[in-house]
């Protein structure tokens, strides 16, 4: 077989384009997808901020309130949920036959997998941006450098989590099955990611579990850039940052772990796409 990188790029592009087109066509969903983050930020965040103020306080890495600490976690949540659930379109395509049309076309299977991952990532970054628009709600001043940093971090997190979703989706034939597996997967990923509480003062068993959650590294990186931009000192931020083997990770190390995880998942997804019939 003649290897044709151009054909593969074509495949990646058109698969991505179709997913984004479909997403854009259903943009009425954007409004309803705001509900969950708003609920978390306004109700959960405000309520717990008040409780923490009344009690001894707690260490939120120099954040002015729990809500400020929570905000980057909610950005991560929006990205995480959208990423993993976007893979549902692969199962949907299989169930409704469209996937066959793609599988029989003269483009490689890995390019289909990559196109799907990029399509889902784009949607997830978009949802993350919608939560970014809520920043004034928690009193976070947005700056251009902060937005750019967050876009990059959101994309890397989205790419990793969509790869996971696509790998799962390539092994599951029914929408019901996907729903069950993803629900089993997404809530632990969310709760263990540190989106809701600092991972610095938790028992050892929980520490191990949180470090196994790839979303942890995405949330950690998002939180650092937000806290640093709001005036927390690097020392304050370091007290709540993720540690691995007693060493505080840098943002670059967070990214490296996410990228490594994404590549493993992507290889698995591509491998399983190769076997689809």
């Amino acid at each position, binding site marked *: 077989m003649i290897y044709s990188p151009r054909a593969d790029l074509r495949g990646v592009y*058109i698969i991505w384009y179709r997913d984004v087109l479909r997403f854009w066509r259903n943009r009425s969903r954007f409004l309803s997808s705001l509900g969950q983050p708003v609920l978390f930020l306004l109700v959960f965040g405000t309520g717990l901020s008040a409780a923490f103020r009344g009690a001894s306080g707690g260490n939120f890495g120099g954040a002015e309130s729990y809500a400020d600490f929570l905000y980057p976690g909610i950005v991560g949540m929006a990205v995480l949920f959208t990423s993993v659930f976007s893979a549902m379109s692969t199962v949907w395509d299989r169930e409704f036959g469209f996937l066959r049309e793609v599988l029989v076309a003269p483009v490689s299977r890995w390019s289909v997998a990559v196109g799907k991952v990029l399509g889902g990532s784009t949607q997830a970054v978009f949802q993350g941006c919608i939560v970014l628009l809520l920043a004034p709600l928690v009193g976070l001043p947005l700056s251009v450098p902060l937005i750019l940093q967050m876009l990059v971090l959101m994309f890397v997190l989205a790419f990793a989590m969509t790869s996971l979703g696509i790998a799962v989706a390539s092994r599951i034939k029914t929408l019901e099955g996907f729903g069950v597996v993803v629900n089993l997967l997404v809530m632990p990923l969310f709760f263990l990611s540190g989106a809701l509480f600092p991972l610095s003062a938790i028992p050892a068993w929980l520490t191990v579990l949180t470090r196994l959650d790839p979303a942890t590294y995405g949330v950690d990186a998002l939180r650092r850039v937000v806290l640093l931009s709001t005036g927390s000192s690097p020392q304050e931020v370091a007290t709540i940052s993720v540690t691995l083997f007693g060493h505080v990770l840098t943002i670059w190390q967070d990214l490296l772990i996410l990228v490594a995880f994404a590549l493993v998942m992507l290889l698995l997804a591509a491998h399983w796409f190769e076997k689809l019939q």
Partner: protein
Amino acid sequence: MDVIQVEQLVKCFGNLAAVDDISFEVRSGEVFGFLGPNGAGKSTTISILCTLVPLTSGRVLVNGFDVVHQPSEVRHSIGIVFQDPSLDIQLTALENLDFAAYLYDVPAAVGREREEQLLRMVGLWDRRDDLVSAFSGGMRRRLEIARGLLHRPAVLFLDEPTVGLDPQTRVLIWHYVLEQRQRDNLTIFLTTHYLDEAEYCDRIAIIDRGKIIALDTPAHLKSRVGGDVITLRSSEPRRAVDEIKEHFGLTASSQDDCLRVVVQHGDEFIPRLCRELTVPIGAVDLTRPTLDDVFLALTGREIREGGPAGPGVMEQAGSGVARRP
């Protein structure tokens, strides 16, 4: 020139041979039919030819390319209309075609022109910007055919193309497909279990339990059944049976006031029959053998398993049509 060559193809699922050592060629420009009951191995064979399913052993060339070693070239050479729908119903008709044009690397300028030509052909040009979710089953199928032809394939595979469609749409679809064949010397490979559809074929392979049990033109296949069936109604059926035996040396079967005779060239036989019989005749009917009868004669089974057997076919089989073991 043979556009498809299949040599000793075998496909096993576990211990079960879904395709059991079949060999055949399809000529360029031919309408080639694969006929058989559900589960006979038709769809498995078509999936192998389309590079979707790996083969267990044997060799398959499509448009001169090996399906195992040159899948990409094979995929460029073929268009497929699957048995099950495979459109994106959340996109418009035109967007579905754009998607395919891009996947198959049809240059944009050429693609636009062909999209319009094909959409006009299948009567969907006016609906090009409508979402496919608003289309009826027949419209979707027509769009799939347009999509399958977009990149000018050498072979168009149609896997049960008209299942579930109304007769009018079935006729239309055949009209489009045959029109394209004349224009582009397109080869059409179809699987079906509709016997009337198999009549459009130049040649038919009858497949049963993973093996090809006959491969010939529809006319030749039918001639194997033995002849035409003449049904006549008479108020004195018993005397009529005797007279037919006496005058023509033929054994007629009778049921109530109906008689059945199997003869060659039934159309020429009817005038003689009417002339020479002295018993009163109420009505005469001539039935040509169908591929249903062929399948029954070859396998001893109806092609549509589970369906009610047509009385005509059953009686004909009972009246001494040669069966092959």
